[in-house]
Every structure is written in structure tokens, then in C-alpha cells.
């Protein structure tokens, strides 16, 4: 085993360990968090870290650690859900382009090219503004991650189309066609099996993209609405003053997001190796 391979294996192991720990802690946030995400300690607004509040409290007296755990749960559950939606949409257009081809295929690729040429943040701002901004927190979570899924499908279409076009010409698919198999069955059974690795890779690539996009929307005030926390909305609570140098704990959401994304990069390193 070369040094590079050993380093890659070590990085992957570390990534799995760190991500597993963060994911596990966030999933049991209800139990692990010292308080609810909206519980206010009115006697201690803006408190520094202490035994009672390990990451201090925010301006409304809410425990930062509890909000961080609940917020990471929202982001870490919904980013994969949005990635699954985007992968499914990309696959649908990939099937149109790669399997059926013709006019529908050309239209699918033209649409993909056009949408992928647009600045992603502008599209998100535009689509988010189409929908009501003053909504219940649960609705804002749904809207945010549905939007990410609905707009983030473009990156995989060409890859899917190429993989599906390759699988379409394979011997076993030709035999299935010759035996009278219907297109739906061929796509659902044979083509899907052939492109599964591409689907998995695309799904994993999209998760960090959506975590970043949600963070951007949150910081810009268009993400998940108060009081429900997400990694993005917690980042928007970082005060825009140079005084944060004296209170580095307010940067905990940024540090957690960085660790999660670096962990995902470490995980994907193996996939792309």
C-alpha cells in the first residue's frame, strides 16, 4: 500500500468518525441538548461560556449549544433529502436525454445548459422571493430545502445522460428490447442498476453543495425562519462587528459547518480516487 493510499484511507476513516459523531449527536439533540432550541434564559442574555451554557447564550438568552445541536439536525437531515430530490430530477432529465434522445433529449439538455449557466445564488434568491417570506418555521424549512432540490439538479444531468446512453447500448439491454421488454421496465430495472454508482456519487456530491447553499440563504436572511435553527440561520446570528474577536464561541456554527464539509470532502476523496 503506497503512502498516498494510506493517507487517503486514514483521512476517510477520520472523516467517517467525525461525521458519524456529529450526525449521531445531532440526531439525539432532544436528549443531548441541555435545553430546547427556543427556551429562553432571560436572566442570562448574551452570556459567555460557562458550565451551564458551554457555548454561551445568544442575545435572547437561548443556549447556543442546544441551538447548534438542533440546527445541525435540521441541516444534516434535509440536505440529503434535497440531494435525493435533485438526483431524482437530474435522473429524469438524464433518462430523457440519454435513453429516449431525439427532440425530448435535446430539449432536456438545452434546459440543463440554460439553467446551469445561471448564477445559482441569483436563482435561489429569485425562487425564494417568489414564495411567501413570512411563514411558519416548519414551512420555511420545507420551502428552503425543496428549492435547493428543485434548483440543484443540473450538475448531474449530463453525467446521467452519458451513463444511460452507454447502458442503453449494452448487450443485455438490447436482448431485453428484443425480448419485448417495455421501456419503463428496461429503464427501471436494467438501466437503473447500471447507473447506480453514478447516482450515488452525484447524491454525495450534492450534499455539501446544499449545505453551503442553505448557509448562504440563511446568512442572507432568506433561509429557515426563527425560532427554528439550522446551520444557515445560526450563521446569520454571528454579529457583524469586530468585537467577535473577543467572543470566538459565536463562530461555533461556522466551525461546525467547516468540519462537516471537510469531513464530506474526506469521504468523497475515496469516491473519486
Amino acid at each position, binding site marked *: 500500500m503506497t503512502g498516498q493510499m494510506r493517507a487517503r484511507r486514514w483521512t476517510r476513516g477520520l472523516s467517517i468518525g467525525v461525521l458519524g459523531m456529529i450526525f449521531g449527536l445531532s440526531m439525539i439533540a432532544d436528549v443531548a441538548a441541555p435545553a430546547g432550541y427556543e427556551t429562553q434564559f432571560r436572566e442570562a442574555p448574551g452570556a459567555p461560556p460557562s458550565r451551564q451554557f458551554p457555548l454561551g447564550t445568544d442575545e435572547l438568552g437561548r443556549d447556543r449549544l442546544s441551538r447548534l445541536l438542533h440546527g445541525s439536525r435540521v441541516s444534516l437531515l434535509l440536505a440529503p433529502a434535497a440531494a435525493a430530490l435533485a438526483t431524482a430530477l437530474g435522473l429524469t432529465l438524464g433518462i430523457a436525454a440519454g435513453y429516449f434522445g431525439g427532440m425530448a433529449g435535446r430539449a432536456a439538455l438545452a434546459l440543463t445548459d440554460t439553467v446551469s449557466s445561471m448564477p445559482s445564488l441569483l436563482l435561489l434568491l429569485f425562487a425564494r422571493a417568489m414564495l411567501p417570506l413570512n411563514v411558519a418555521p416548519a414551512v420555511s424549512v420545507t420551502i428552503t430545502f425543496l428549492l435547493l432540490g428543485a434548483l440543484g439538479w443540473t450538475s448531474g444531468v449530463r453525467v446521467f445522460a452519458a451513463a444511460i446512453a452507454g447502458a442503453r447500448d449494452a448487450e443485455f439491454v438490447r436482448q431485453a428490447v428484443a425480448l419485448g421488454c417495455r421501456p419503463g421496465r428496461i429503464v427501471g430495472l436494467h438501466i437503473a442498476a447500471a447507473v447506480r454508482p453514478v447516482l450515488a456519487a452525484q447524491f454525495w456530491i450534492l450534499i455539501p453543495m446544499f449545505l453551503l447553499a442553505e448557509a448562504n440563504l440563511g446568512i442572507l436572511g*432568506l433561509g429557515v425562519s426563527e425560532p427554528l435553527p439550522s446551520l444557515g440561520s445560526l450563521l446569520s446570528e454571528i454579529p457583524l462587528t469586530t468585537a467577535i474577536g473577543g467572543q470566538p464561541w459565536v463562530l461555533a456554527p461556522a466551525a461546525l459547518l467547516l468540519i462537516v464539509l471537510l469531513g464530506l470532502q474526506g469521504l468523497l476523496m475515496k469516491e473519486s480516487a
Partner: protein
Amino acid sequence: MPDSKRRPVAVLLRAAARLVMSLLITGFMTTCMIRLAPGFGADERELDSRLSAASIDELKRDRNDAHAAASYYRLLKNAAAGDLGFSEALNRPVLELIQQRYATTVRILFLGWGLAWTGALIVSAVGVILQSPAVRLSATAAAGVVLCIPSALLAYLCYLARTPAFAVVALVVFARVFRVTDNLFRGAQSMPHILAARAQGVSERKIFVRHILSATLAELIALAGASVAIAVSATIAAEALCDQPGLGQLAWKAALGRDLPLLVSLTFIIGTVTLVFNRAADALVELRRPAA
């Protein structure tokens, strides 16, 4: 006309046709989405009891076309006449707002984009020419970290560090471009003609300038076109958080205030700019390919 002269014209015409089609589709989709937005067509002036029924009917007629296609046609017609609509939140014509702000955006966008590309090309080239793993690994690690920071947070940090807004764009674009240029240049190093040049004792600098750059030029051009969209996204975040009065900040404010007419115009204009760059890059790549 000889084929060698006819081909560039055909490529450019095809690119222009694709651009026009993309713009028409984008515009139509934008119009349709706007019409589906909750609150579309509502005007608080319709609740004004001082207005007559005829005036209210006129207001309704003015805002609601029967079909999306009719609405789109009117939008195009007005845009061609220089009327991009009226911002409800800022109470000013959209064209006036854009004229006041576009210079800031152009400056931030192209300074950042240019700096990022210069940096990415220099660092990748140094890594290849010096065959230095240290340069490559440190730049890869730095780019990897930047890729893990949302551009809006990067804008936050740059604002606190009092760095200019274009630094945000430069960092965001550098991180994405460097990874590709580095891979491209390292991939090209194992091409047979480059291995042969190295075996004959040609210096690494000459190999890079004469062979590696020309072998990867098409991919670099395509990447340059695509990176404009990345730079635009970063510009929006940078302007919004670094308080720069550009089109990105305007788009952000329009989104926060649900100022749909302003947002439609901005989406269309900024989308047009990125599409132009993308299609121009596609055309250049196609021109570099040998004719079939």
C-alpha cells in the same frame, strides 16, 4: 466563401441563435414563475375607496394580462423601448436603479474574477514547472478550506477584516478554478508528446508554455465561461454583506422586499450577462476543435 472562413461565421451564428433561444426561454420561464407567485397581481391601491370602479378596473387590467405569453410579449416590448418596469419597494424606475449601480458590480465582478484566474493560473503553473508538491499541496489545502466556507460567510469575514469586496469573489472563484486548472495541467503532463519533449531535455517552463497551455486551452476557455456564473453568485453575497451598492445588493434587497418587477429585471439582465459569457466560451471552444 472558402470553408475556413465560413466555419467561424457558422459557429458564431449557431452560438448567437442558442443564446437568443436560451434568453427567450429564460424570460418566459421567469414570467411564468412570477405569475405563480403568491400575491402576484395584488395592488393595495385597489383597496383605496377614493378610486372609482373604472379606475380599479384599469389598475387590474394594467397588472394582469390574460396569458403568460401576452404578459411576456408586453415585457419584451417594454424592455426594447428601455422600460424595465418600476420598483415598488424603492419607488423608482428599474432602469434608473440599474444605471446607478452597475459600475460597482462590474468592478467587483471583474476584479475578483481576474484576480482569481491570475492566481489560479500562476499557482498551478508554478506547481507544474517547479514540480513542487509543497506548492500544490498547500494551494490544494487552502482551496479545499475555502470551498467549505459559504461565500456569504466569507463576505462576513472579509468585511470584518476590512478587505475589499472583490477579495471575496477572488477567493471563491480561485478555490473552484484552481482545482480544475491544477488537475488539467497535471493530467496534460502525462501526454505522449509532452513526455517526449521532457525526454529530449526541453525545460519545464517551455513545456508548460508551448505544450501544456495549448493542450488545455479549450478546457480553460470553457471553465472561464462557467466561472463567470460562480463569480456573479459570489458578487451578490459580497455586495450584500460588505454594503456595496451594486446590482447584487439590489437583487438581495429586492428578494427580501419581494419586489418582483425589480427582481425579474435583475435576473434577466444578470442571467443574460452570464449566458453571453457561457455561449461565447462554447463558441471559442468549438472554433478550436478541428473541423469534421
